[in-house]
């Protein structure tokens, strides 16, 4: 069974982003970029499926600028077998990414596509579900446990009220949540080995996909800051403030 794992290069989770003064974009010059943390989890899960004998090959894919090759090398250093970059400098919105991935799925014929439930930059939480729809495949989103056997996947999902377990026939799309696993670190020998693994580059044009954005961003702004608060001495002081100043108890 082949597993396809899309990964996104995003501003690192520990960076506090700033909007450019003209409100046109987020300033990402000189900012650390990393693999989307949810995608690290999906790479890890796919590699574990391979180590357990349930998967035969793990192919990672990224859509975006040339520098996404670094993200793909990172994924290969933690166990993915080969990589594909759909290279473009154009803005890519979730529907366009889903269409690019569908074109790759049609070529690669994986039985499972496993990707993060959302990217921590645009926080859209859309690509996995859109890809499943375009393929006409079942989906299991927000996975905190995945087991694959006999042509189906049993997936425990994190939902608002607790947990839900569903069963989907393969091929299927699974999106990963935080508690599915703890991703491993790449070791130096594996980073060296990853440099020799195959990395193919294709373009949206070559895949015949229209990636025109559907949403135009008119403005970006930072939310208004909260007024400065005050330090209180103890619980008695706190209760007095909540009752007499804030009027919330």
């Amino acid at each position, binding site marked *: 069974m082949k597993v396809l794992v899309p990964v996104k290069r995003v501003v690192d989770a520990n960076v506090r982003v700033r909007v450019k003064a003209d409100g046109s974009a987020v300033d990402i010059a000189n900012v650390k970029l990393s693999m989307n943390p949810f995608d690290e989890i999906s790479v890890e899960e796919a590699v574990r499926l391979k180590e357990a004998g349930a998967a035969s090959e793990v192919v990672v894919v990224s859509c975006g600028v040339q520098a996404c090759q670094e993200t793909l090398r990172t994924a290969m250093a933690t166990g993915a077998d080969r990589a594909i970059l759909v290279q473009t400098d154009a803005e890519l919105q979730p529907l366009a990414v889903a269409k690019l991935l569908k074109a790759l799925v049609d070529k690669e014929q994986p039985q499972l596509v496993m990707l993060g439930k959302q990217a*921590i930059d645009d926080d859209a939480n859309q690509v996995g579900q859109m890809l499943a*729809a375009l393929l006409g495949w*079942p989906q299991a*989103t927000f996975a905190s446990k995945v087991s694959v056997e006999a042509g189906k996947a049993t997936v425990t999902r994190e939902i*608002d009220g*607790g947990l839900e*377990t569903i069963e989907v026939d393969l091929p299927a799309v699974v999106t990963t949540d935080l508690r599915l696993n703890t991703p491993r670190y790449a070791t130096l020998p594996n980073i060296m080995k990853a440099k020799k693994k195959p990395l193919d580059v294709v373009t949206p044009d070559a895949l015949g996909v229209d990636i025109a954005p*559907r949403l135009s961003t008119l403005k970006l702004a930072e*939310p208004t800051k909260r007024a400065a608060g005050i*330090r209180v001495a103890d619980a008695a002081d706190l209760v007095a403030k909540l009752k007499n100043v804030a009027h919330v108890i």
Partner: protein
Amino acid sequence: MSILVIAEHDNHTLKAATLNTVTAAACLGDDIHVLVAGSQCASVAEQAASIAGVKRVRVVDAPHYAHLLAENLAALITTVAADYSHVLAPATTTAKNAMPRVAALLDVAQISDVVAVESADTFVRPIYAGNVLATVRSADRIKVMTVRTTAFAAAPAEGGAAAIESLAPAVEVPGSRFVSQQLTRSERPELTSAQRVISGGRGMGSGENFALLEDIANKLGAAVGASRAAVDAGFVPNDYQVGQTGKVIAPQLYIAVGISGAIQHLAGMKDSKVIVAINKDEEAPIFQVADFWIVGDLFKVLPELSGELDKLQQN
């Protein structure tokens, strides 16, 4: 121009998130319809019909909508959506699962987590864990969107008298089956709709110590939440998590205990009306968003707080 709202429910009760979504819909126009898809869900349809401002309720009752699996729900919404300019659902896990599927089947973009409606085609949504607000315009013929419920007041649950009509179900989509559910039961208010919330972080040290928070929650009529660190450590179940990828809440009072305040946690609670933080680390980032804070050992402060609340109730 009619607007379709997807009802959030459990086949018996309409969830409060639907009321906030109706308010968002009312920013777009007044011909608001609610779609109730479920199984044995007639009582939900009646509750939806009594929401103030709702003109029509469309009910689809069939066994394959019992668990609102994305494949079946999306196929249904996609056929119904043709009559509408906008399709809105609250940003719950049910809708986050199904709505992007709807958008892709309609070949339109989805606008996720809308916090403000500027016009019929222009919306504001948070990105980068709520550190940036993006104003976006959609050129698509049908706007598919999820609504951040904390950004819109609840429409009155009573006062409406919408007509209820039945629609035929869409053909069942194979390939996905419900197996089981493990829901957290609690006598306390639901986290997403509670007026008061007390949350614990890694500083709580163990799941047993959450009893200290539960004691105060009971006295305040509050829900109990947690940071990712506390959930990852196994102190409490996943549905307690407040943050960028957990629940986004905005209660009247939010008390953060032993939570340092990573930006991912702040994303889930920084729109609360009053924020209280209790932490022993004077440098904890949570203090930057707090209205009132105590620097101290939570194992000393929480029992004192509990005692003070008792005194308040006696007076």
